[in-house]
Structures are given as C-alpha cells and as structure tokens.
C-alpha cells in the first residue's frame, strides 16, 4: 500500500530536532557504554604498540591481515555517502532526501575509522610519516610518489576533507534553525557555524549551487579512493592480485557494502529516533532496488576476475583460487562470503514484500557487510600464504584476540561518533524534507489518485 505522510514545518522541526534539543536517557547509556568499549580498545592498542606486532597473528609471509582487511572494509563503507548523496542529488532522485545526511556522516566517520587502521597496522605508527613525508632532507630521501601506498593517504584525506565540506554545506540551513531555537553558549556556537544564514534567495541559490558543484567534484574523488586502494594490490605481482579489473571491482564492491550499511543505519535510526514519519517502506524499497543493480554489476566483475584468473593457466594463480575456494577453512569462509554477499540477499530483494520489510532488509543488509568483510579477507590472506621456493607448505594466518578486539573497536568508534553527531546535529536534513514536501502532489489517473512529483529544473 502506497501512502504518504504530509507534515507541517513545525512538526518536521519538532520531530527531527528531538535529540538535538533534549537528551534522552538511552542516548546517555549508549554513549557511555561505547565510550567504555573504546577506552578499552585504546588500551589494547597501546599494549600492542608496547609489545610489538608479535601479539597479532601476522607472521611471514602474511603481513597483511585483519587490520588491512578492516581498512578496506571501512573505506568501502564510506562509499555510501557519495553514492547516495551526490549521485542521487545529481540524478534528482526524490527518495534520497531522508537518507543523505546519515549517509554522508557515515562516510566521514567510516573514513576516520579506516585511517586508524594503517596506523595500528604499522605497529610503530610514527613510522607512517616516513612513507608520506620527506624525513631526511640532508640525504634527499623522499617518499616514493610512484607507490600507491603514498597515493592512499592523499586520496583518503582528500575524500575526508571534501566529505566534511559536503556535510557541512548541507548542514548550514539546519544549523540556523537550531541557532534560532537555542539559548546561551549553544546559540553562539550554532550562530557561528550557520554563517549568518537567514534563508534569503541569494543564500539558497548559493547553497543549491554549492551542493551541485560539490556533488560533481566529489564523484571523481569517490571513484579514485577505492581505485587507489585496489592499486595497492594490483600493481604488485602477487598472484591473484595483479589483475586489471581490481579498480572497478573494488569500487562497485564498496558501493555494494556501503549502500547495505546505509540500509542498516536507516533502519536502526528509524527505530532509535522514532523516525517512522520520515523513513518509509518506499525509501528502503528504493535502496533495495539500487542494491540489486549494484550487486549484479559486482557479480559480473567478480565473474570476470575469476575467469581471467584462470585464463593464463598459471599455476600460482590457480593455486590461490583453489586455496580460497576448496581448502578449509578458507573454503568455508568463501562459501559464507558468496552466500552472504549475493546468493541469499539478491534473490530475496527480488520480492517486493522483502524490500518493504524493515526486518528483512535489516538482516539482509547486515549479512552483505559480513560477506563483504570476508571478501576482502579472502582477497588478501590466501594470496599472501603462498608457498615459497624453499618451503614445502603454505604459511597460514589466524587473527589473534588483539586483532578481533581492535576490529570490534572500530565498529564501536563509528557508532559512538554517529551518536555524538546526532546529539548536536539532525541526522535527517530538515530543509531537504521540507523542500520534498513542497514537491509532493497528486494526479488523478482514471478513478485513482496517484502520488506525483513536481518536476524540478
């Protein structure tokens, strides 16, 4: 059943500014719990720095494990923000409105979480600077700009900066609304942040222009980030990594994972913040349709990766794939990855009833991200477990409790940031919702009244 809820501007303000203007008890409890978890994880990280990377499962030749998997995972999640916000804004998809802010915010926090991983992975994080910045002017030792490991921090920090700018630009009208409803020091802070916004035609024009411009400019950055991450692998000669398809394969995989994360986030947000009037079945349905397309494209690229890996009939290449697909425990992980990322969710999303069920969509979107984490793990680890010329067996890798704890810590970190953000800023853009209400109409077709939209130009 298709139905719409029409709300007045006052109702929109009241419902979306609920957690900003008041502090619910559940929020305090959740933030405190997550804070304790994060503090614990920071302690574990400090202990690992003190003890050295020996406390992890990283052993020669598998020097990339859970940390790098997690780095790629969070960079992937960060692709949702731009996918949802910039592309849907440029294509004037009306259903984007309630989800853009949350998606953009998740991008920022996922990128922050991802940036912690190379630091943790280095074991001695200060050494990261040796790669990125010149550290010995006298002897002319410079970072190797031809290395994708140098491109990574440049791409990710560019993406982080532009994403923050993107979030901030879209926040300005809402900040002005909060300013007008606050008192004391909060009013001053929001006053400064809202840059004197009064909503006059010139300001709206500039805001719209900035939104479109940033959407267009951020798209190449969005594509380049995960491409560069993929080139960390593909420009090497490691069997199963040196493939031309990795850049689009990583990007589309990131979008698959990121949009699924947005679905999860929207459903949890809807429940926690009681946003039933803003997040409807229609929105989740639209996201599920988008996911079907993305998942099919991802499967096409996965299939090409597999076929062309076998193409040259190179022994090492085939061995890695055999290891991934047929040798336990990797084969079990491969089975789970394939089932969770594609075989279970995509056929389910074909059914309208599933697409419009919050419960089904929550679980299917969650398993996609479990699957996509496993995918990155399976790309990295079996390829490095190669049998060397002088060894008779494969090396193996088993993540230690330290690594599990730190991975869990990054999830807690992103949730913590999102909760704190929601205390100070609305997770659904008020002005976008209000604009959307103005564009809603109805058309009489035969005997039925069909929901309609005013065409934007």
């Amino acid at each position, binding site marked *: 059943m*298709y139905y719409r809820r029409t709300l007045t501007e006052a109702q929109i303000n009241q419902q979306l500014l609920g957690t900003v203007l008041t502090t619910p008890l559940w929020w305090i409890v959740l933030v405190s719990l997550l804070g304790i978890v994060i503090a614990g994880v920071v302690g574990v990280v400090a202990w690992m720095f003190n003890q050295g990377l020996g406390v992890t499962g990283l052993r020669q030749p598998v020097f990339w494990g859970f940390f790098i998997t997690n780095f790629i995972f969070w960079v992937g999640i960060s692709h949702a923000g731009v996918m949802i916000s910039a592309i849907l804004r*440029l*294509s004037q998809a009306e259903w984007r409105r309630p989800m853009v802010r949350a998606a953009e915010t998740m991008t920022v926090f996922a990128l922050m979480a991802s940036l912690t991983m190379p630091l943790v992975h280095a074991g001695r994080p200060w050494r990261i600077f040796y790669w990125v910045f010149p550290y010995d002017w006298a002897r002319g030792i410079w970072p190797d700009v031809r290395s994708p490991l140098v491109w990574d921090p440049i791409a990710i920090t560019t993406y982080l900066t532009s994403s923050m700018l993107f979030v901030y630009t879209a926040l300005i009208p809402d900040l002005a609304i909060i300013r007008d409803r606050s008192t004391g020091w909060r009013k001053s802070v929001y006053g400064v942040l809202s840059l004197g916004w009064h909503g006059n035609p010139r300001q709206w024009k500039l805001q719209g222009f900035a939104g479109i411009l940033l959407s267009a400019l951020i798209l*190449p950055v969005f*594509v380049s980030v995960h*491409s560069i991450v993929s*080139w960390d692998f*593909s*420009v*090497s*000669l490691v069997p199963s990594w*040196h*493939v*031309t*398809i*990795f*850049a*689009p394969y990583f990007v589309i995989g990131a979008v698959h994972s990121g949009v699924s994360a947005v679905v999860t986030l929207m459903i949890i947000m809807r429940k926690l913040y009681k946003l039933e009037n803003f997040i409807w079945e229609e929105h989740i349905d639209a996201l599920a349709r988008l996911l079907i397309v993305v998942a*099919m494209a991802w499967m*096409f*690229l996965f299939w*090409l*990766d597999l*076929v*062309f*890996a*076998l*193409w*040259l*009939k*190179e022994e090492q290449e085939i061995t890695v794939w055999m290891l991934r697909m047929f040798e336990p425990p990797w084969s079990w992980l491969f089975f789970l990855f394939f089932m969770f990322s594609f075989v279970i969710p995509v056929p389910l999303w074909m059914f309208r009833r599933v697409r419009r069920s919050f419960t089904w969509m929550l679980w299917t979107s969650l398993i996609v991200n479990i699957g996509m984490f496993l995918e990155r793990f399976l790309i990295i680890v079996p390829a490095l477990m190669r049998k060397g010329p002088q060894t008779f067996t494969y090396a193996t890798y088993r993540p230690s409790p330290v690594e599990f704890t730190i991975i869990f810590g990054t999830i807690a970190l992103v949730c913590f940031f999102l909760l704190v953000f929601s205390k100070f800023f609305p997770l659904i853009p008020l002005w976008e919702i209000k604009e959307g209400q103005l564009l809603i*109409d*109805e*058309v009489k*077709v*035969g005997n039925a009244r*069909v*929901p*309609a*939209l*005013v*065409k934007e*130009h």
Partner: protein
Amino acid sequence: MAHDEHAAPTVPTHQEIASDIMAKFQNINQSYWRWVSLLAVLFAAGVVGFVIKLMAGFDDRSEWGYYVATLSFLASTFLAMPVISAGLRLAKANWRRPLTRLTENMAITGVLIWFMLIPALIALPDTEGRLSVWFDFPHWMSFRGGNLMVWGTVVLIGLFLLWTLALPDLAAVRDHMPKSPRGKVARVLSLGWTGNTRQWRVLHSGVLLFGAFYLLLYPTLQTLLQADFQAGLLPGMKDAIAPATALINALQGAVAMTLVVMFIMRRFGGYERYFGIDQFWALSKPLLAFSLLWFYFWWGSFITFWYGRQPGETALIQFLILDSYRIPLIFSFLFNFIGPLVALVWNPVRRSIWGPTIVGVGVLFGALINHIRWYVAPFSVLDPPEGKDWPHVATLMSFEDAIPAGQLPGIADVLIIVGGIAGAFLLFMLINKIIPVVSMWEVGEGLRLVKVRRYLARYAMVIAKSH
C-alpha cells in the same frame, strides 16, 4: 515533450499524438525512398567488399581484422541500443517514452550482425592449444557454436522485446490501414491484440522478462567478443577488465547513436515534438558519465600493465598503446573522452539539440577507431611457428622478433565498414515503416501521468509515479 518552464506547457491528448504518429508512419515520401536507395547501394558495396575478402579465403587471418572491427562496432552500438531501452524502462524515467521505440527498432540490425558473425568465427583459429574462455573444450562447437548461440539468443530476445512492446501499436496500424500490405503484416504481427486487461498484463510481464534477459545477456556477448576475438589472439594478454571496458564503450556508443538517430529523425522525419530538449538533455548526462568511465576503465588496465612490467605486458603496451596503434588510441582518446568531457560538462551544451548530437557523432567516430585498434591489432598477430603451442603464459612468441606494425585498411575493408553501417541503417529504415518509430501507447501512457500546475508565477509539470 519539450517545453519552456516560464510559459504554461501544453500537454497534448493521447488522440492527438496517436493521429500525428500514425500520419507520419503512413507517409512514405520520395525522400524516404532516396535514403533507402542510397543505403541499399552502400550496403551492396559492402557486400562486394565482403566477396573480395571471401575470394582471398581465410588462410591469412589479418585480412579479416577490419571485418571483425566492423562487426564489433555494429554489435557495440546498434545491438547495445535495446539495453538503453530496457535500462530506462527499469529506471522508470518518464522522459524515455518518445525514444525507447527508436532504440528497440534497432534490434532488427541483430539479424545482419548475426550473419556477419559466421565468417568472423571461421576466420578464428581453433581454441585447442591457445588461451580461451572455453578453456579445455576442444570441440569446435564449444566456441563457434557457443558464440552463435549466445549472439543468436541476444538477437532473438531483442526482437522479442521489440515485438512485445510493439503489439499495441501494431494493432493500431492494423486497424488504420486494413487494406494495405503493411496493415496485413501488422495484422499477423499484432497477434489479435485488442487491449484487454489480460493482454496488458502479459505485455508488462513480457517486457520485464525480455528486458531483464537482454540486460543480463548483453554483457556475456561482449565478454565473448573480447575474449575470443581479441584477448585469445594476443600473446600475454590477461586483461580481466577488457569485457567490462567493452561493455562501457558499447553503452557509450549506444547512447551516442540514439542521440544521432534522434537528431536525424527530428531533422528529416518531422519528429521535432517527440525528440525535444528533454530527451537530448537527459541522454547527454549518461553520455558524459560513460565518457568518464571510458577513461577510467582504460586507465585501470593501463596502470596495471605499466606497473607489472612483465615481458608480455610491456610488449602489449608497445603494440596497442605506444607504438603500432598509437594514432588510433589518440583519436579514440580525443573523441571518446576529451571531447565529451570538455563539451558536456557545460549545462548549456547538454541542454541543446546540437551539442549532444555533435558530441555523439564524435563518440561514434572514436568508437569505430577504437574497435579498429582492438580487433585489427590481434588479427595481425601471426600464428605460432609450426609445431609450437600458443603461449599459455606471458611469453611473447610472435612478438619475439618484432612487434607487428599497424595495419591500414584496403579498399575492400573500407567498403565493408561503410556497407556494414549502411546495412544496419537500411534495416532500421525498413522496420520503421512496419513498426512506428515512436511508441504511440507509451507516449500516450506518459501523457496520462502528467499534469500542468501553476506554482506562484511559474508553471510546472507534475508527474505521477507510475508504479
């Protein structure tokens, strides 16, 4: 329909539209016959070129490079056009309605393309002992039969998609022209369509089914084309991205061809009111997106080879990029990426009739050149010496002595290129007089979903969501 947002847009009735399209459909004037005759002569010239090649035989594979490039160009533009229709329909884009039939009518060119595939497959060496996506299936059926089957299925599904979507319009033709030969053909093809609820339901299900199948199978066709006609003939070629690149290029070509054909129909066919600014503007956006992706996919492949620096990769970069086929790559780079980027990044260019059309013509030229680079190059690589196997790994074999030089087209090659393209357009011109080039029922359906409302000092279109 095109409109000015400051004036009250006029929305015609379904009856007006149907009468107008039917009048244009019924009218076969001198100009039409002149175009058909010209295309028929050019197609005949192409047949002559093909016969010249046939007389030379299949022993020298390099003779067939331009033929395969033509085949690939046709498959990557004309045959990709129904993908545009299916994709836009799934995306429920309202502006698509006047142009989808045009793209679906192009499915008829699949018949010519399928017949052109047969000699191309004969020109290929057996897969035994060489790299192939058919792996260790030695029997000739595995790749020749497999290709014919996959291509044939794509063509058939395209034709079924066209036929299903044309049923209501064929019924209209049947009822308006009962005594003419075209009316008689329409009577047979319309399958007794009367427009009852059940028939509409079947039509919508059929369209969804055929559209989805076409969208799924077309990438497979491109994969086979790349693997069998290009990668399998180039020693050391391990380019998993190539089929995806080919798919993106095909979609770019299909959008460009749609723009160009819309312009021609507008200019010479009197279809101005159907192919308006809205359609050109909307299509120029995916054209820009595909142009950016063209570069992205090309770069993804190049950088991996460049950093890999394995002997086969270095030789391939020399052969396809830096040396033998450098000039075609530069042309393709200019027309498929730089040109569209520089022009279409500007909204006034996108929101015009001429802008996207000129870019579209450039894209098609660039695509043709790129297909020549892609397929003439591998066909000019010699077979391995007697008694030696095709290379399995990145060894150079045929490249050991020297990288083959770029191959220029002969007269027969030029005739085949011109004749092939003319043949495809000829089929399109002919089918347009059996099935109207603008869908009466889809445009009519769209009109029922649109209302004009006044908002303050302006008028705006209100579009119902048709689910």
